[in-house]
Protein backbone atom coordinates (compact mmCIF):
# COMPACT_ATOMS: atom_id res chain seq x y z
CA UNK A 1 0.00 0.00 0.00
CA UNK A 2 2.91 2.30 0.72
CA UNK A 3 4.37 1.75 -2.73
CA UNK A 4 1.00 2.62 -4.18
CA UNK A 5 1.05 5.95 -2.40
CA UNK A 6 4.34 6.84 -4.08
CA UNK A 7 3.02 5.86 -7.49
CA UNK A 8 -0.14 7.88 -7.03
CA UNK A 9 1.88 10.88 -5.92
CA UNK A 10 3.97 10.55 -9.08
CA UNK A 11 0.88 10.44 -11.32
CA UNK A 12 -0.60 13.55 -9.73
CA UNK A 13 2.71 15.40 -9.97
CA UNK A 14 2.94 14.52 -13.65
CA UNK A 15 -0.60 15.66 -14.36
CA UNK A 16 0.03 18.92 -12.51
CA UNK A 17 3.35 19.53 -14.27
CA UNK A 18 1.83 18.92 -17.66
CA UNK A 19 1.44 22.26 -19.37
CA UNK A 20 -1.81 21.26 -20.99
CA UNK A 21 -3.74 18.68 -18.98
CA UNK A 22 -4.96 20.78 -16.01
CA UNK A 23 -6.29 23.43 -18.39
CA UNK A 24 -7.94 20.81 -20.54
CA UNK A 25 -9.66 19.22 -17.56
CA UNK A 26 -11.34 22.52 -16.66
CA UNK A 27 -11.82 24.15 -20.04
CA UNK A 28 -12.97 21.16 -22.00
CA UNK A 29 -16.06 20.27 -19.94
CA UNK A 30 -16.99 23.95 -19.70
CA UNK A 31 -16.73 24.45 -23.43
CA UNK A 32 -18.65 21.32 -24.28
CA UNK A 33 -21.40 22.00 -21.76
CA UNK A 34 -21.75 25.69 -22.59
CA UNK A 35 -21.62 25.59 -26.37
CA UNK A 36 -22.64 22.17 -27.57
CA UNK A 37 -26.22 22.13 -26.28
CA UNK A 38 -26.87 25.23 -28.39
CA UNK A 39 -25.44 23.60 -31.47
CA UNK A 40 -26.57 20.02 -31.09
CA UNK A 41 -30.20 20.67 -31.82
CA UNK A 42 -32.35 18.85 -34.28
CA UNK A 43 -35.17 21.36 -34.00
CA UNK A 44 -35.87 22.90 -37.35
CA UNK A 45 -35.95 26.65 -37.22
CA UNK A 46 -35.63 29.37 -39.82
CA UNK A 47 -37.49 27.46 -42.53
CA UNK A 48 -37.55 29.83 -45.49
CA UNK A 49 -40.90 29.90 -47.23
CA UNK A 50 -41.74 31.21 -50.71
CA UNK A 51 -45.39 31.87 -51.40
CA UNK A 52 -46.70 31.76 -54.95
CA UNK A 53 -49.84 33.76 -54.40
CA UNK A 54 -52.09 33.53 -57.45
CA UNK A 55 -55.22 34.18 -55.45
CA UNK A 56 -54.29 37.54 -53.95
CA UNK A 57 -57.21 37.52 -51.60
CA UNK A 58 -57.62 38.39 -47.95
CA UNK A 59 -57.37 34.71 -47.18
CA UNK A 60 -54.05 34.31 -48.95
CA UNK A 61 -52.56 37.39 -47.31
CA UNK A 62 -53.80 36.12 -43.97
CA UNK A 63 -52.00 32.84 -44.54
CA UNK A 64 -48.81 34.71 -45.42
CA UNK A 65 -49.03 36.88 -42.32
CA UNK A 66 -49.42 33.74 -40.21
CA UNK A 67 -46.23 32.40 -41.75
CA UNK A 68 -44.52 35.58 -40.64
CA UNK A 69 -45.86 35.19 -37.11
CA UNK A 70 -44.59 31.64 -36.81
CA UNK A 71 -41.50 31.12 -34.69
CA UNK A 72 -40.21 28.55 -37.13
CA UNK A 73 -41.08 29.97 -40.54
CA UNK A 74 -39.65 32.94 -42.39
CA UNK A 75 -41.53 34.12 -45.50
CA UNK A 76 -38.74 35.30 -47.75
CA UNK A 77 -40.48 35.63 -51.08
CA UNK A 78 -43.99 36.39 -52.33
CA UNK A 79 -44.54 36.14 -56.06
CA UNK A 80 -47.12 35.19 -58.62
CA UNK A 81 -44.73 33.11 -60.69
CA UNK A 82 -44.03 29.53 -59.70
CA UNK A 83 -40.82 29.55 -61.79
CA UNK A 84 -39.39 32.35 -59.70
CA UNK A 85 -40.05 30.47 -56.47
CA UNK A 86 -38.58 27.29 -57.96
CA UNK A 87 -35.42 29.12 -58.96
CA UNK A 88 -35.05 30.38 -55.39
CA UNK A 89 -35.53 26.83 -54.11
CA UNK A 90 -32.84 25.61 -56.47
CA UNK A 91 -30.47 28.31 -55.30
CA UNK A 92 -31.11 27.15 -51.75
CA UNK A 93 -32.67 30.45 -50.65
CA UNK A 94 -36.00 28.80 -50.01
CA UNK A 95 -36.87 25.54 -48.24
CA UNK A 96 -40.59 25.24 -48.91
CA UNK A 97 -42.78 26.64 -51.71
CA UNK A 98 -46.46 27.22 -50.99
CA UNK A 99 -48.64 27.71 -54.03
CA UNK A 100 -52.06 29.24 -53.44
CA UNK A 101 -54.17 28.69 -56.60
CA UNK A 102 -56.48 31.11 -58.42
CA UNK A 103 -59.91 31.53 -56.87
CA UNK A 104 -58.80 29.80 -53.72
CA UNK A 105 -60.79 32.09 -51.49
CA UNK A 106 -63.93 32.00 -53.58
CA UNK A 107 -64.11 28.25 -53.79
CA UNK A 108 -63.10 27.69 -50.26
CA UNK A 109 -66.64 27.10 -49.12
CA UNK A 110 -67.56 24.99 -52.15
CA UNK A 111 -67.63 21.24 -52.02
CA UNK A 112 -64.54 20.89 -54.15
CA UNK A 113 -62.18 23.65 -53.09
CA UNK A 114 -58.97 24.34 -54.99
CA UNK A 115 -55.97 22.80 -53.37
CA UNK A 116 -52.89 24.51 -52.02
CA UNK A 117 -49.79 22.76 -53.30
CA UNK A 118 -46.51 22.49 -51.45
CA UNK A 119 -42.99 21.69 -52.58
CA UNK A 120 -40.04 21.25 -50.25
CA UNK A 121 -36.31 20.96 -50.69
CA UNK A 122 -35.66 17.57 -49.12
CA UNK A 123 -31.88 17.42 -49.55
CA UNK A 124 -31.82 17.90 -45.82
CA UNK A 125 -34.59 15.41 -45.19
CA UNK A 126 -35.25 16.51 -41.63
CA UNK A 127 -35.55 20.15 -42.50
CA UNK A 128 -37.64 19.50 -45.58
CA UNK A 129 -39.99 17.12 -43.80
CA UNK A 130 -40.44 19.11 -40.62
CA UNK A 131 -40.62 22.42 -42.51
CA UNK A 132 -43.43 21.03 -44.60
CA UNK A 133 -45.29 19.95 -41.47
CA UNK A 134 -44.96 23.38 -39.93
CA UNK A 135 -46.35 24.95 -43.09
CA UNK A 136 -49.31 22.56 -43.19
CA UNK A 137 -50.09 23.19 -39.57
CA UNK A 138 -49.90 26.95 -40.01
CA UNK A 139 -52.24 26.87 -43.03
CA UNK A 140 -54.66 24.57 -41.25
CA UNK A 141 -54.65 26.91 -38.32
CA UNK A 142 -55.47 29.90 -40.53
CA UNK A 143 -58.29 28.08 -42.30
CA UNK A 144 -59.84 26.91 -39.08
CA UNK A 145 -59.75 30.46 -37.83
CA UNK A 146 -61.47 31.68 -41.01
CA UNK A 147 -64.19 29.14 -40.82
CA UNK A 148 -64.83 30.01 -37.24
CA UNK A 149 -65.37 33.63 -38.30
CA UNK A 150 -67.56 33.06 -41.34
CA UNK A 151 -69.82 30.50 -39.75
CA UNK A 152 -71.24 31.58 -36.46
CA UNK A 153 -72.49 28.06 -35.80
CA UNK A 154 -69.60 26.09 -34.42
CA UNK A 155 -68.81 23.27 -36.75
CA UNK A 156 -66.40 20.49 -36.16
CA UNK A 157 -63.02 21.60 -37.34
CA UNK A 158 -61.98 20.49 -40.76
CA UNK A 159 -58.52 19.80 -39.57
CA UNK A 160 -57.49 19.08 -36.04
CA UNK A 161 -54.17 20.62 -35.23
CA UNK A 162 -52.09 18.86 -32.69
CA UNK A 163 -49.09 20.77 -31.53
CA UNK A 164 -46.31 18.29 -31.96
CA UNK A 165 -43.49 20.77 -31.88
CA UNK A 166 -40.77 19.54 -29.78
CA UNK A 167 -40.09 22.51 -27.55
CA UNK A 168 -36.43 23.44 -27.98
CA UNK A 169 -35.71 23.12 -24.31
CA UNK A 170 -36.67 19.48 -24.24
CA UNK A 171 -34.31 18.66 -26.99
CA UNK A 172 -31.44 20.19 -25.05
CA UNK A 173 -32.40 18.21 -22.02
CA UNK A 174 -32.23 15.13 -24.14
CA UNK A 175 -28.77 16.01 -25.47
CA UNK A 176 -27.08 17.17 -22.25
CA UNK A 177 -26.75 13.65 -20.79
CA UNK A 178 -25.24 12.54 -24.10
CA UNK A 179 -22.72 15.36 -23.91
CA UNK A 180 -21.76 14.30 -20.40
CA UNK A 181 -21.01 10.82 -21.70
CA UNK A 182 -18.94 12.19 -24.55
CA UNK A 183 -16.95 14.14 -21.96
CA UNK A 184 -16.28 10.98 -19.95
CA UNK A 185 -15.22 9.08 -23.01
CA UNK A 186 -12.76 11.77 -24.01
CA UNK A 187 -11.36 12.60 -20.58
CA UNK A 188 -11.39 9.20 -18.87
CA UNK A 189 -11.06 7.18 -22.05
CA UNK A 190 -8.21 8.94 -23.79
CA UNK A 191 -6.03 10.32 -21.03
CA UNK A 192 -5.11 7.11 -19.16
CA UNK A 193 -4.27 5.40 -22.46
CA UNK A 194 -2.09 8.28 -23.54
CA UNK A 195 -0.40 8.31 -20.17
CA UNK A 196 0.60 4.63 -20.44
CA UNK A 197 1.70 4.85 -24.05
CA UNK A 198 3.62 8.01 -23.19
CA UNK A 199 5.61 5.96 -20.69
CA UNK A 200 6.24 3.36 -23.35
CA UNK A 201 7.49 5.96 -25.78
CA UNK A 202 9.76 7.68 -23.28
CA UNK A 203 11.07 4.33 -22.00
CA UNK A 204 10.17 4.99 -18.38
CA UNK A 205 7.85 1.99 -18.34
CA UNK A 206 10.90 -0.24 -18.72
CA UNK A 207 12.39 1.25 -15.58
CA UNK A 208 9.08 0.50 -13.84
CA UNK A 209 8.95 -3.04 -15.24
CA UNK A 210 12.33 -3.85 -13.76
CA UNK A 211 11.14 -2.94 -10.27
CA UNK A 212 9.05 -5.18 -8.01
CA UNK A 213 5.87 -3.08 -8.49
CA UNK A 214 2.86 -5.33 -8.98
CA UNK A 215 0.93 -4.94 -12.19
CA UNK A 216 -2.22 -4.18 -10.27
CA UNK A 217 -0.57 -1.36 -8.32
CA UNK A 218 0.83 0.26 -11.43
CA UNK A 219 -2.48 -0.07 -13.29
CA UNK A 220 -4.48 1.30 -10.37
CA UNK A 221 -2.11 4.22 -9.93
CA UNK A 222 -2.72 5.11 -13.57
CA UNK A 223 -6.49 4.87 -13.15
CA UNK A 224 -7.25 6.48 -9.80
CA UNK A 225 -6.33 10.05 -10.85
CA UNK A 226 -8.65 9.81 -13.83
CA UNK A 227 -11.46 8.46 -11.70
CA UNK A 228 -11.14 11.52 -9.52
CA UNK A 229 -10.91 13.79 -12.55
CA UNK A 230 -13.97 12.06 -14.02
CA UNK A 231 -16.01 12.70 -10.90
CA UNK A 232 -14.89 16.31 -11.00
CA UNK A 233 -15.96 16.56 -14.64
CA UNK A 234 -19.42 15.14 -13.94
CA UNK A 235 -19.88 17.59 -11.07
CA UNK A 236 -18.84 20.50 -13.25
CA UNK A 237 -21.15 19.33 -16.04
CA UNK A 238 -24.10 19.01 -13.65
CA UNK A 239 -23.49 22.48 -12.27
CA UNK A 240 -23.40 23.99 -15.76
CA UNK A 241 -26.53 22.08 -16.77
CA UNK A 242 -28.31 23.44 -13.70
CA UNK A 243 -27.13 27.03 -13.87
CA UNK A 244 -27.14 27.61 -17.60
CA UNK A 245 -29.91 25.34 -18.86
CA UNK A 246 -31.93 25.00 -15.70
CA UNK A 247 -31.69 21.25 -15.96
CA UNK A 248 -31.60 19.53 -12.59
CA UNK A 249 -32.04 15.80 -12.17
CA UNK A 250 -35.53 14.78 -11.10
CA UNK A 251 -33.99 11.74 -9.45
CA UNK A 252 -31.15 11.59 -6.96
CA UNK A 253 -27.68 12.97 -7.61
CA UNK A 254 -26.27 9.94 -5.76
CA UNK A 255 -27.66 7.64 -8.44
CA UNK A 256 -25.92 9.72 -11.09
CA UNK A 257 -22.62 9.61 -9.23
CA UNK A 258 -22.83 5.86 -8.79
CA UNK A 259 -23.52 5.39 -12.50
CA UNK A 260 -20.77 7.85 -13.38
CA UNK A 261 -18.27 6.03 -11.18
CA UNK A 262 -19.06 2.67 -12.78
CA UNK A 263 -18.91 4.15 -16.25
CA UNK A 264 -15.61 5.90 -15.57
CA UNK A 265 -14.18 2.61 -14.27
CA UNK A 266 -15.36 0.88 -17.40
CA UNK A 267 -14.09 3.37 -19.93
CA UNK A 268 -10.72 3.91 -18.24
CA UNK A 269 -10.15 0.16 -17.92
CA UNK A 270 -11.04 -0.16 -21.57
CA UNK A 271 -8.59 2.57 -22.47
CA UNK A 272 -5.74 0.96 -20.55
CA UNK A 273 -6.38 -2.35 -22.26
CA UNK A 274 -6.04 -0.62 -25.63
CA UNK A 275 -2.84 1.07 -24.41
CA UNK A 276 -1.35 -2.25 -23.34
CA UNK A 277 -1.70 -3.50 -26.89
CA UNK A 278 -0.28 -0.34 -28.48
CA UNK A 279 3.32 0.66 -28.93
CA UNK A 280 2.87 4.25 -30.07
CA UNK A 281 0.57 7.21 -29.49
CA UNK A 282 -0.58 7.07 -33.10
CA UNK A 283 -1.67 3.50 -32.79
CA UNK A 284 -3.51 4.16 -29.54
CA UNK A 285 -5.28 7.21 -30.93
CA UNK A 286 -6.40 5.41 -34.03
CA UNK A 287 -7.74 2.37 -32.21
CA UNK A 288 -9.45 4.54 -29.59
CA UNK A 289 -11.08 6.64 -32.28
CA UNK A 290 -12.40 3.53 -33.95
CA UNK A 291 -14.15 2.42 -30.78
CA UNK A 292 -15.25 5.90 -29.80
CA UNK A 293 -16.99 6.33 -33.15
CA UNK A 294 -18.95 3.18 -32.44
CA UNK A 295 -19.66 4.27 -28.87
CA UNK A 296 -20.91 7.69 -29.94
CA UNK A 297 -22.98 6.66 -32.92
CA UNK A 298 -24.39 3.34 -31.79
CA UNK A 299 -25.06 3.71 -28.08
CA UNK A 300 -28.16 5.81 -28.43
CA UNK A 301 -26.39 9.00 -27.49
CA UNK A 302 -27.54 10.93 -30.55
CA UNK A 303 -30.12 8.73 -32.19
CA UNK A 304 -32.65 6.45 -30.52
CA UNK A 305 -31.65 2.79 -30.36
CA UNK A 306 -35.26 1.81 -31.10
CA UNK A 307 -34.99 3.20 -34.63
CA UNK A 308 -31.90 1.13 -35.45
CA UNK A 309 -32.09 -2.12 -37.43
CA UNK A 310 -32.64 -5.16 -35.22
CA UNK A 311 -29.06 -6.46 -35.62
CA UNK A 312 -27.71 -3.07 -34.53
CA UNK A 313 -30.06 -3.00 -31.56
CA UNK A 314 -28.66 -6.34 -30.44
CA UNK A 315 -25.13 -5.08 -30.95
CA UNK A 316 -25.74 -2.13 -28.64
CA UNK A 317 -26.06 -4.60 -25.76
CA UNK A 318 -22.26 -4.90 -25.63
CA UNK A 319 -21.67 -1.12 -25.67
CA UNK A 320 -21.16 0.27 -22.16
CA UNK A 321 -22.32 3.86 -22.93
CA UNK A 322 -25.73 2.46 -23.85
CA UNK A 323 -26.36 1.54 -20.23
CA UNK A 324 -25.08 4.75 -18.80
CA UNK A 325 -27.03 7.04 -21.13
CA UNK A 326 -30.20 5.27 -20.03
CA UNK A 327 -29.26 5.85 -16.41
CA UNK A 328 -28.53 9.53 -17.00
CA UNK A 329 -31.66 10.24 -19.01
CA UNK A 330 -33.96 8.29 -16.73
CA UNK A 331 -32.60 9.90 -13.58
CA UNK A 332 -32.48 13.38 -15.08
CA UNK A 333 -35.82 13.40 -16.86
CA UNK A 334 -37.95 10.75 -15.19
CA UNK A 335 -36.47 10.57 -11.71
CA UNK A 336 -35.69 6.86 -11.88
CA UNK A 337 -34.01 5.18 -8.91
CA UNK A 338 -31.27 2.57 -8.54
CA UNK A 339 -33.97 -0.06 -8.11
CA UNK A 340 -35.60 0.87 -11.44
CA UNK A 341 -32.26 0.81 -13.17
CA UNK A 342 -30.71 -2.18 -11.45
CA UNK A 343 -30.01 -4.04 -14.70
CA UNK A 344 -28.12 -1.04 -16.11
CA UNK A 345 -26.03 -0.79 -12.97
CA UNK A 346 -25.36 -4.52 -13.05
CA UNK A 347 -24.24 -4.28 -16.69
CA UNK A 348 -21.96 -1.32 -15.97
CA UNK A 349 -20.49 -3.09 -12.94
CA UNK A 350 -19.84 -6.15 -15.08
CA UNK A 351 -18.10 -4.11 -17.77
CA UNK A 352 -16.01 -2.32 -15.16
CA UNK A 353 -14.79 -5.64 -13.74
CA UNK A 354 -14.07 -7.18 -17.12
CA UNK A 355 -12.14 -4.23 -18.56
CA UNK A 356 -10.09 -3.54 -15.45
CA UNK A 357 -9.19 -7.19 -15.08
CA UNK A 358 -8.19 -7.20 -18.74
CA UNK A 359 -6.14 -4.04 -18.21
CA UNK A 360 -4.20 -5.62 -15.34
CA UNK A 361 -3.78 -8.95 -17.14
CA UNK A 362 -2.66 -7.57 -20.49
CA UNK A 363 -0.02 -5.42 -18.87
CA UNK A 364 3.09 -7.57 -19.18
CA UNK A 365 6.16 -6.90 -17.12
CA UNK A 366 8.03 -9.87 -18.53
CA UNK A 367 7.63 -10.93 -22.16
Amino acid at each position, binding site marked *: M*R*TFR*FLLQKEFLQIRRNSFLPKLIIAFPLMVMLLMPLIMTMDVRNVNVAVVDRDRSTTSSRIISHFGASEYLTPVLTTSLYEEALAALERGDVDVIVQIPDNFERELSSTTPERISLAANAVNATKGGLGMQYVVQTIAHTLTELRGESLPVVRSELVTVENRYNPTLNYRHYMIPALMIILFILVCGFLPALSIVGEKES*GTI*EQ*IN*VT*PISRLQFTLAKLVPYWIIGLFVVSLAMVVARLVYGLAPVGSVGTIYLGALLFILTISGFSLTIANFSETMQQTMFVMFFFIMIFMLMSGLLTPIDSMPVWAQRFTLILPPRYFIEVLRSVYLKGATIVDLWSNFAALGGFAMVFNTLAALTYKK*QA
Partner: protein
Amino acid sequence: MSDTQQIVISVRDLTKRFGEFTAVDRISFDVARGEIFGFLGANGAGKTTAMRMLCGLSYPTDGSGTVAGFDVRREGEKIKRHIGYMSQRFSLYNDLTVWENMRLFGGIYRLTDSQIKSRSEELLSRLNFLDERNTLVGALPLGWKQKLAFAIATIHRPEVVFLDEPTGGVDPVTRRQFWELIYEAAEAGTTIFVTTHYMDEAEYCSRVSIMVDGEIRALDTPARLKEQFHAESMDEVFRTLARGAQRAE
Protein backbone atom coordinates in the same frame (compact mmCIF):
# COMPACT_ATOMS: atom_id res chain seq x y z
CA MET B 1 37.57 -16.22 -9.81
CA SER B 2 38.09 -18.56 -6.87
CA ASP B 3 35.43 -20.99 -5.63
CA THR B 4 35.26 -19.37 -2.24
CA GLN B 5 33.66 -16.30 -3.80
CA GLN B 6 29.93 -16.11 -3.78
CA ILE B 7 28.24 -16.52 -7.15
CA VAL B 8 25.61 -13.85 -7.78
CA ILE B 9 24.73 -14.53 -11.40
CA SER B 10 24.86 -18.01 -12.83
CA VAL B 11 23.73 -18.78 -16.37
CA ARG B 12 23.64 -22.10 -18.23
CA ASP B 13 22.81 -22.42 -21.93
CA LEU B 14 20.53 -19.41 -21.79
CA THR B 15 18.76 -18.98 -25.14
CA LYS B 16 16.25 -16.55 -26.59
CA ARG B 17 14.65 -17.11 -29.95
CA PHE B 18 12.23 -14.76 -31.71
CA GLY B 19 10.59 -17.03 -34.25
CA GLU B 20 13.38 -18.32 -36.49
CA PHE B 21 15.90 -15.82 -35.19
CA THR B 22 18.14 -16.85 -32.30
CA ALA B 23 19.06 -13.63 -30.54
CA VAL B 24 20.94 -15.30 -27.70
CA ASP B 25 22.44 -18.71 -28.35
CA ARG B 26 23.22 -20.94 -25.33
CA ILE B 27 25.32 -18.61 -23.27
CA SER B 28 26.82 -19.77 -19.96
CA PHE B 29 28.80 -17.86 -17.35
CA ASP B 30 29.05 -17.05 -13.65
CA VAL B 31 29.57 -13.70 -12.00
CA ALA B 32 30.87 -13.37 -8.43
CA ARG B 33 29.87 -10.82 -5.84
CA GLY B 34 31.62 -7.50 -6.18
CA GLU B 35 32.84 -8.18 -9.71
CA ILE B 36 32.61 -5.64 -12.50
CA PHE B 37 31.53 -7.87 -15.35
CA GLY B 38 31.94 -6.33 -18.80
CA PHE B 39 29.44 -7.65 -21.31
CA LEU B 40 30.76 -6.70 -24.72
CA GLY B 41 29.55 -7.28 -28.24
CA ALA B 42 28.83 -5.49 -31.49
CA ASN B 43 25.41 -3.92 -32.07
CA GLY B 44 22.87 -6.67 -32.57
CA ALA B 45 25.06 -9.33 -30.95
CA GLY B 46 22.35 -10.02 -28.36
CA LYS B 47 23.69 -8.20 -25.29
CA THR B 48 20.54 -6.29 -24.45
CA THR B 49 18.34 -9.34 -24.99
CA ALA B 50 20.54 -11.40 -22.65
CA MET B 51 20.50 -8.66 -20.06
CA ARG B 52 16.74 -8.33 -20.24
CA MET B 53 16.39 -12.04 -19.49
CA LEU B 54 18.59 -11.65 -16.43
CA CYS B 55 16.49 -8.71 -15.20
CA GLY B 56 13.20 -10.54 -15.47
CA LEU B 57 11.98 -8.43 -18.39
CA SER B 58 12.07 -11.26 -20.89
CA TYR B 59 11.46 -15.01 -20.60
CA PRO B 60 14.28 -17.30 -21.81
CA THR B 61 13.28 -19.70 -24.57
CA ASP B 62 15.69 -22.28 -23.25
CA GLY B 63 18.40 -22.82 -20.68
CA SER B 64 18.47 -21.64 -17.10
CA GLY B 65 19.91 -18.98 -14.92
CA THR B 66 19.80 -17.49 -11.44
CA VAL B 67 20.32 -13.93 -10.34
CA ALA B 68 20.80 -13.21 -6.64
CA GLY B 69 19.72 -16.81 -6.03
CA PHE B 70 16.41 -16.55 -7.91
CA ASP B 71 15.39 -18.33 -11.09
CA VAL B 72 15.20 -16.07 -14.13
CA ARG B 73 12.28 -18.00 -15.56
CA ARG B 74 9.99 -18.37 -12.57
CA GLU B 75 11.11 -15.78 -10.04
CA GLY B 76 11.47 -12.65 -12.14
CA GLU B 77 9.59 -10.52 -9.62
CA LYS B 78 11.85 -11.67 -6.76
CA ILE B 79 14.94 -10.90 -8.82
CA LYS B 80 13.60 -7.38 -9.32
CA ARG B 81 13.78 -6.68 -5.60
CA HIS B 82 17.50 -7.37 -5.56
CA ILE B 83 18.73 -5.69 -8.70
CA GLY B 84 19.11 -2.23 -10.12
CA TYR B 85 18.79 -1.53 -13.82
CA MET B 86 19.79 1.30 -16.04
CA SER B 87 18.64 0.97 -19.62
CA GLN B 88 20.19 2.20 -22.85
CA ARG B 89 17.62 4.93 -23.02
CA PHE B 90 17.46 7.39 -20.20
CA SER B 91 14.37 6.35 -18.33
CA LEU B 92 13.85 8.46 -15.26
CA TYR B 93 10.86 10.80 -15.24
CA ASN B 94 11.85 14.01 -16.99
CA ASP B 95 8.86 15.85 -15.59
CA LEU B 96 9.79 15.07 -11.99
CA THR B 97 12.59 16.72 -10.06
CA VAL B 98 15.79 14.96 -9.00
CA TRP B 99 14.47 14.51 -5.48
CA GLU B 100 11.02 13.37 -6.64
CA ASN B 101 12.60 10.66 -8.79
CA MET B 102 14.68 9.50 -5.83
CA ARG B 103 11.64 9.47 -3.57
CA LEU B 104 9.59 7.56 -6.15
CA PHE B 105 12.13 4.80 -6.72
CA GLY B 106 13.05 4.65 -3.04
CA GLY B 107 9.36 4.17 -2.31
CA ILE B 108 8.96 1.56 -5.02
CA TYR B 109 11.83 -0.46 -3.48
CA ARG B 110 10.08 -0.22 -0.13
CA LEU B 111 12.61 1.95 1.67
CA THR B 112 11.28 3.72 4.75
CA ASP B 113 10.81 7.47 4.67
CA SER B 114 13.94 8.03 6.76
CA GLN B 115 15.95 5.67 4.53
CA ILE B 116 14.77 7.55 1.45
CA LYS B 117 15.80 10.79 3.05
CA SER B 118 19.23 9.71 4.23
CA ARG B 119 20.14 7.83 1.05
CA SER B 120 19.01 10.66 -1.19
CA GLU B 121 21.14 13.09 0.79
CA GLU B 122 24.06 10.73 0.53
CA LEU B 123 23.65 10.24 -3.21
CA LEU B 124 23.08 13.93 -3.87
CA SER B 125 26.23 14.91 -2.03
CA ARG B 126 28.28 12.14 -3.66
CA LEU B 127 27.13 13.39 -7.09
CA ASN B 128 27.60 17.04 -6.08
CA PHE B 129 23.92 17.45 -6.89
CA LEU B 130 22.80 19.12 -3.67
CA ASP B 131 21.85 22.30 -5.54
CA GLU B 132 19.95 20.38 -8.19
CA ARG B 133 17.62 18.66 -5.77
CA ASN B 134 14.59 20.55 -7.07
CA THR B 135 15.64 20.72 -10.72
CA LEU B 136 13.44 18.91 -13.20
CA VAL B 137 15.39 15.92 -14.46
CA GLY B 138 14.57 16.85 -18.05
CA ALA B 139 16.58 20.06 -17.63
CA LEU B 140 19.82 18.27 -16.71
CA PRO B 141 22.63 17.67 -19.24
CA LEU B 142 22.94 14.09 -20.48
CA GLY B 143 26.05 13.22 -18.47
CA TRP B 144 24.39 14.36 -15.26
CA LYS B 145 21.27 12.43 -16.10
CA GLN B 146 23.30 9.25 -16.52
CA LYS B 147 25.03 9.72 -13.19
CA LEU B 148 21.67 10.34 -11.58
CA ALA B 149 20.18 7.26 -13.24
CA PHE B 150 23.03 5.18 -11.83
CA ALA B 151 22.56 6.65 -8.38
CA ILE B 152 18.83 5.88 -8.47
CA ALA B 153 19.47 2.36 -9.77
CA THR B 154 21.50 1.75 -6.60
CA ILE B 155 19.32 3.67 -4.13
CA HIS B 156 18.05 0.41 -2.59
CA ARG B 157 21.60 -1.05 -2.37
CA PRO B 158 20.88 -3.91 -4.76
CA GLU B 159 23.06 -7.02 -5.02
CA VAL B 160 23.55 -6.55 -8.76
CA VAL B 161 23.28 -3.50 -10.99
CA PHE B 162 22.72 -4.00 -14.69
CA LEU B 163 23.98 -1.14 -16.82
CA ASP B 164 23.13 -1.17 -20.52
CA GLU B 165 25.57 1.15 -22.33
CA PRO B 166 25.43 3.65 -19.48
CA THR B 167 28.00 6.03 -20.97
CA GLY B 168 26.76 6.23 -24.56
CA GLY B 169 27.05 9.83 -25.75
CA VAL B 170 28.64 11.02 -22.51
CA ASP B 171 31.79 13.23 -22.54
CA PRO B 172 35.14 11.73 -21.40
CA VAL B 173 35.29 13.66 -18.13
CA THR B 174 31.81 12.59 -17.09
CA ARG B 175 32.56 9.07 -18.30
CA ARG B 176 35.53 9.01 -15.94
CA GLN B 177 33.36 10.22 -13.07
CA PHE B 178 30.76 7.64 -13.94
CA TRP B 179 33.32 4.85 -13.65
CA GLU B 180 34.42 6.18 -10.31
CA LEU B 181 30.83 5.72 -9.15
CA ILE B 182 30.89 2.18 -10.51
CA TYR B 183 34.10 1.41 -8.64
CA GLU B 184 32.72 2.80 -5.40
CA ALA B 185 29.62 0.65 -5.73
CA ALA B 186 31.67 -2.45 -6.52
CA GLU B 187 33.91 -1.87 -3.53
CA ALA B 188 30.81 -1.66 -1.38
CA GLY B 189 29.97 -5.17 -2.57
CA THR B 190 27.52 -4.48 -5.38
CA THR B 191 28.06 -6.63 -8.43
CA ILE B 192 28.20 -4.63 -11.67
CA PHE B 193 27.04 -6.10 -14.95
CA VAL B 194 27.80 -3.59 -17.68
CA THR B 195 27.62 -3.44 -21.46
CA THR B 196 29.70 -0.91 -23.32
CA HIS B 197 31.16 -0.04 -26.68
CA TYR B 198 34.10 1.83 -25.19
CA MET B 199 37.11 -0.46 -25.05
CA ASP B 200 38.92 1.72 -22.54
CA GLU B 201 35.99 0.99 -20.22
CA ALA B 202 36.42 -2.72 -20.92
CA GLU B 203 39.90 -2.43 -19.46
CA TYR B 204 38.39 -1.28 -16.15
CA CYS B 205 36.33 -4.47 -15.79
CA SER B 206 37.30 -7.38 -13.57
CA ARG B 207 36.29 -9.79 -16.32
CA VAL B 208 34.95 -9.35 -19.81
CA SER B 209 32.82 -11.50 -22.08
CA ILE B 210 32.57 -10.81 -25.79
CA MET B 211 29.41 -11.81 -27.63
CA VAL B 212 29.35 -12.41 -31.37
CA ASP B 213 26.19 -13.50 -33.19
CA GLY B 214 24.37 -14.38 -29.98
CA GLU B 215 27.19 -16.55 -28.58
CA ILE B 216 29.88 -15.78 -26.03
CA ARG B 217 33.18 -16.16 -27.94
CA ALA B 218 35.59 -15.07 -25.22
CA LEU B 219 35.41 -14.66 -21.45
CA ASP B 220 38.28 -13.78 -19.12
CA THR B 221 40.09 -10.93 -17.42
CA PRO B 222 41.16 -8.17 -19.84
CA ALA B 223 44.84 -9.07 -19.27
CA ARG B 224 44.38 -12.72 -20.12
CA LEU B 225 42.19 -11.97 -23.14
CA LYS B 226 44.90 -9.74 -24.55
CA GLU B 227 47.41 -12.51 -23.99
CA GLN B 228 45.15 -15.12 -25.56
CA PHE B 229 44.57 -13.05 -28.70
CA HIS B 230 48.15 -11.68 -28.80
CA ALA B 231 46.69 -8.19 -28.69
CA GLU B 232 47.96 -4.86 -27.38
CA SER B 233 44.55 -3.62 -26.21
CA MET B 234 40.99 -4.73 -25.63
CA ASP B 235 40.14 -2.80 -28.76
CA GLU B 236 42.23 -5.22 -30.81
CA VAL B 237 40.73 -8.24 -29.05
CA PHE B 238 37.26 -6.98 -29.78
CA ARG B 239 37.96 -6.26 -33.43
CA THR B 240 39.55 -9.66 -33.95
CA LEU B 241 36.40 -11.34 -32.67
CA ALA B 242 33.77 -8.99 -34.08
CA ARG B 243 35.25 -9.13 -37.58
CA GLY B 244 33.96 -12.69 -37.88
CA ALA B 245 30.37 -11.66 -37.18
CA GLN B 246 27.81 -12.93 -39.69
CA ARG B 247 24.92 -10.83 -38.50
CA ALA B 248 24.39 -7.50 -40.08
CA GLU B 249 23.44 -4.70 -37.74
